[in-house]
């Protein structure tokens, strides 16, 4: 039995924000963006961490329904699996907008163009190594944003017939696992020219692995544009050379904007916003604003 939305047409008082994994700086930047914007609106933000567990996110949505929040910005662990829970929220009169990852049944979504991010990063990688050579791909957990990036990379690869993939492994999206996996991959393949990593923590882990195995002349690229990546790019002899930067704050702020409009009964021109990513290299590092 859906809860009546008691303050229909009124002000937004409570905003629920659900992210996949708060321990990733990307999501905490998003959280900061949403909180700032909410403060300006005089609304309160309640954040929940999905811990990569769809079951937990289901439970959290049920709790949000109990709390009678007005707006839900959701970054689901899984786009489709969250569908029924989103529907429950809608039935309870909550406005739901998906951020960063699409969510089934959500009224609108805004995400980075992950395919484009993969394209950007890999294009840079292939050019830097002269259009030919052997590369490693360090993949992550099987979620759509990650897979889109790999897809983008593979799309570009069609234009570079002399690029060979020497190894393709999964690194759990984090630094430590990437370090272990990359160390082993570099041992198995001594003549590698570059690495594409699906996000910055993975890229930086691979970078550590390269340093520790004494590998030189490697080009490593990632996706994110995180503060740690920025810092590493600033280091002129690092093998980590580029990242396709996302704008988590913007995703959050714009997502909230879309939600506010929907909440107030306005029509959105674009219910599906894709935000382009921007390639950051050592050359344009100074102009990059970063996540802070």
């Amino acid at each position, binding site marked *: *039995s859906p*809860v009546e939305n008691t303050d229909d047409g009124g002000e937004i008082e409570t905003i629920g924000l659900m992210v996949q994994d*708060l321990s990733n700086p990307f999501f905490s930047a998003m959280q900061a963006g949403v909180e700032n914007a909410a403060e300006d609106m005089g609304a309160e933000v*309640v*954040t*929940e*961490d999905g*811990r*990569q*567990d*769809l*079951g937990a996110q*289901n*439970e*959290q949505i*049920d*709790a949000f*329904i*109990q*709390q009678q929040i007005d707006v839900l910005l959701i970054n689901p*662990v*899984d*786009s*489709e*699996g*969250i*569908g*029924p*829970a989103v529907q*429950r929220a809608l039935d309870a009169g909550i406005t739901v907008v998906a951020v960063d990852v699409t969510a089934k049944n959500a009224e609108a979504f805004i995400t980075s163009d992950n395919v484009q991010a993969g394209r950007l990063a890999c294009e840079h990688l292939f050019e830097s190594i002269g259009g030919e050579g052997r590369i490693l791909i360090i993949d992550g*957990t*099987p979620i759509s944003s990650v*897979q889109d990036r790999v897809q983008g990379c593979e799309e570009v690869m069609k234009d570079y017939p002399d690029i060979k993939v020497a190894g393709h492994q999964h690194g759990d999206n984090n630094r430590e696992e990437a370090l272990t996996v990359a160390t082993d991959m570099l041992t198995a393949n001594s003549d590698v020219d570059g690495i594409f990593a699906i996000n910055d923590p993975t890229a930086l882990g691979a970078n550590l692995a390269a340093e520790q195995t004494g590998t030189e002349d490697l080009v490593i690229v990632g996706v994110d544009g995180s503060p740690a990546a920025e810092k590493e790019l600033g280091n002129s002899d690092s093998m980590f050379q580029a990242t396709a930067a996302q704008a988590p704050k913007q995703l959050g702020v714009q997502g909230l904007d879309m939600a506010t409009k929907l909440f107030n009964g306005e029509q959105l021109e674009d219910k599906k916003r894709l935000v382009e990513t921007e390639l950051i290299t050592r050359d344009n590092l100074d102009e990059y604003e970063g996540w802070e």
Partner: protein
Amino acid sequence: MTETSRADESAPAADAGAIAPPRAGRPRFASLWDRYGILGVLVLMIVLMAVLAPNFLSFDNVFNVARAASINAILAAGMTLVILTRGIDLSVGSNLAVCGIVSVLLWTSGMPAAVCILGGIAVGALFGLLSGALIAYLALPAFIVTLGGLTYLRGTAYLLTDGQPLIADDLGFRLMGSGFVAGVPVPVVLMLAVFAVLWFVLRHTRFGTQIYAIGGNPEAARLAGIKVKWTIVRVYVIAGACAGLAGVIFSARVMSGQPTAGETYELDAIAAVVLGGTSLMGGIGNVQRTLIGAMIMGVLSNGLLLMNVPYFYQLIIKGAVIVLAVAIDSLKNWKRA
């Protein structure tokens, strides 16, 4: 664990005066606290949450708690039987994922809903059979066999779905997750049914007695003509079937087969069993108390969410409360000592 088992062994004899008359002064009490101590913890927690958490006692929320706890509770029910025989099943979380996926795969391949549900459960039972056979007939340690199961079943779940969630918008058995029976959510009804059946099995069937006997003294059970190995196998089959049912409910609830479903659920299930006072040394415990254990965990999760406690603090509080709950429950041993 050492200390606890000793406490158990020193349980007083209520009436052992056949040969020498019972000695004066031997305390003959505490059976109430023994049985209901952990229920007291649950009640305490509910009262606390009702005061602290807004909407906690609302009609809907009561069902939210029960529904959210149902998957863990169903896993814990099967786990109780396993632990009663001195075993453990670490593979239930991964098994849940595989079974959930299988049920969705059956649906997308055009099977009727009933077949999908039964198919999911059957696959869970089958993997339980595999673990149980290795444990009982090859005498391998349950911990390692099911830790292996945790790993290869997760791989199987990824393989079956190619790592992608398997979407089924038109899932025929979606009511298994979101339906209601007489106003009660279906997962809750199923949970209660599982507990009722297993309560009956443990209490009123020969199989149940055999489980306790094996947990209490496997050698004695063997000499009494009980088929110890076969009984153990059946227990793992039941735990697997419970994981299968939980997987079907999970899939129905998220209308898709998720390869990452159920990660670390095995530890929650074991926690519910042990919170309920079932001994990891086997032979002592029952499913009623496991249900209470699972509810304590569910109430805690839900209450902390409703109170908007930040996630980091939720973890700290949860960890502390688990320890506290067994500490309170163990007070009974102190009075004895």
